[in-house]
């Protein structure tokens, strides 16, 4: 698209209207800034504490600017026993959950979007109901089950639990996304010689990708942050939050900030990686 292609923005006819609109625009910007600051402040404070020297944490008043930056806190946290393996476990669980829930959730979402089948509404309701059960209530019988099947204290156990937790949202988000791609485009593709699979891959998938990315993002972050179930289902193969939680009571303040920071960063990186797809989704749906 060249700039010449896009029409010039419409100029308000009267100056009074224009000024009102400008004030409104300023208001919107301010509100956006306020929300961003609200969300960003804890992240900033945790990062600040995690990246300062341990001594500066005890100083009063606390400096709000990164005055004495050091990696000492983070280094001692990361080298602490169990932290690095837990980090790796978390990554395995997050990615495993993502892959599994997309593999199962995508076809389910597609079926919900495209076909009318017996029990469709009941199925949708039932899926939401699984979220009504607290994780703790789910985890205890699951622990029992995994103990008897030998899955207890493995990353698979946590992946299975997190997939079960993530599936309802994955299915509902992807079905909403597939509904958004008109069926006649798929039909057109088939008329012009595509098999159903080709039509899906060439026509539906490219348009659904942003939505699928959003669902995947949501799944990964949910899994990354989930702590209760992971803590119940594992002993040695802890995920990072479970590890941090189990050692929280007996650890110094610096450890807590470093743990918090270690938990935030990968999720942020993941969001940043997915940003392209998310933006293109908003770009197309807002057009």
């Amino acid at each position, binding site marked *: 698209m060249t700039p010449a292609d896009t029409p010039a923005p419409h100029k308000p006819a009267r100056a009074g209207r224009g000024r009102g609109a400008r004030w409104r625009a300023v208001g919107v910007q301010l509100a956006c800034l306020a929300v961003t600051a609200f969300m960003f402040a804890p992240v900033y404070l945790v990062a600040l504490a995690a990246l300062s020297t341990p001594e500066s944490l005890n100083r009063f008043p606390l400096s709000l600017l990164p005055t004495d930056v050091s990696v000492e806190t983070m280094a001692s946290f990361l080298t602490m026993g169990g932290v690095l393996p837990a980090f790796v476990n978390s990554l395995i669980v997050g990615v495993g959950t993502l892959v599994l829930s997309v593999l199962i959730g995508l076809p389910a979402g597609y079926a919900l979007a495209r076909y009318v089948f017996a029990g469709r509404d009941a199925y949708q309701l039932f899926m939401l109901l699984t979220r009504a059960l607290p994780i703790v209530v789910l985890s205890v019988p699951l622990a029992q089950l995994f103990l008897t099947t030998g899955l207890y204290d493995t990353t698979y156990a946590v992946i299975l639990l997190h997939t079960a937790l993530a599936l309802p949202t994955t299915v509902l988000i992807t079905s909403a996304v597939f509904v958004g791609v008109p069926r006649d485009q798929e039909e057109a*593709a088939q008329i*012009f*010689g595509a098999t159903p699979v080709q039509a899906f891959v060439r026509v539906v998938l490219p348009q659904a990708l942003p939505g699928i990315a959003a669902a995947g993002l949501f799944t990964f972050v949910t899994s990354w942050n989930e702590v209760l179930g992971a803590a119940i289902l594992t002993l040695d193969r802890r995920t990072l939050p479970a590890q941090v939680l189990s050692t929280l009571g007996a650890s110094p303040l610096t450890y807590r900030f470093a743990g918090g920071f270690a938990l935030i960063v990968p999720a942020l990186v993941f969001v940043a990686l997915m940003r392209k797809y998310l933006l293109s989704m908003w770009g197309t749906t807002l057009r």
Partner: protein
Amino acid sequence: MADIIVSDLVKTHPGGRRPATDHISLHIPDGEFLVLVGPSGCGKTTLLRMVAGLETPDAGTIHIRGRDVTHLSARQRNVSMVFQSYAIFPHMRVRANIGFGLMLHKVPKDEINRRVARAAELLNLTDVLDRHPAQLSGGQRQRVAVARAIAVDADVLLMDEPLSNLDALLRLQFRSELKKIVNQLGTTTIYVTHDQAEAMSLGDRVAVLRDGRIAQIGPPIEVYDRPADQFVGGFLGSPPMNFLPATVESGAGQARVLVGTQRLAAPGQLTGFAGRPVSVGIRAENINVSDTARDGALAAQVEVVEPTGSAVLLTVQLDGIQLKVQTPPSFATQPGKPVWLTIDPKHMRFYDPDTALALEVAA
């Protein structure tokens, strides 16, 4: 030899109370351009989708090229289609949209480029080939859908109102373009339209659909000139055909019809219907108007005068019956003025007032 034979096609949509197509049978010879017209919801799109393989009929069969395709998927039928909703792919540029079918059929790259360029040129899309559909106007999107459909070598071309979103001028231009293109391609075509003029000018034959059935099928002139029933006469043509309630009288070997309180000469063959009520169908352009009284003319009063540029359309009142009459633009009159109408018996059509079907009166 891609002829299409549709036999006894029945389809009721799930939840539909009456069939969308009700025992439709058609034979479309190779290379024919068949136009489907009919009021909204009469089943045109449904019929087209069944021929395309997007909808499975409840009963009946479809043969293309002598092959029973009733249960084949769309992909196996080698048809091409312009969707009523365009159904172009928003994530692909216009170029990729038009070349989509060719790409799937593994046509070599430069051949694809050549044919995409040709289709784009025919439909005035050369300047927008590298845009995405969201950056096009509605009419341009529709033309992309047409270009995509004509770029492939299909046995059958199905078009569902492909020019509906163009302005009057463009539509006129593309109508003749399309006629030329389809003539060159020689593809058997089914074309759905709401536009009278398109139906008349494009079709080798016109089929008028009503409530899922074919009311009449034939060459455009014949369907226009000799509507098989009052519905067809009222649907095709603008203004629609006039229908005058009348009674047949015969005397002295000459047939006449009594319209209101006035008498009108009728074709001699009508004598067999003497004494019976009939409905006289007459096109607006077949009524001659004069502003002076004449022997054998019907006296009427002008109610509305609508100049259309090339003609003047009059709404006149004849003993309580409203009639549309077309006169040359030079005819000057005003509402309230009396006029005298003469009708050549050979332009009159006669319908049974109860069944609305044409009476067998060879004129």
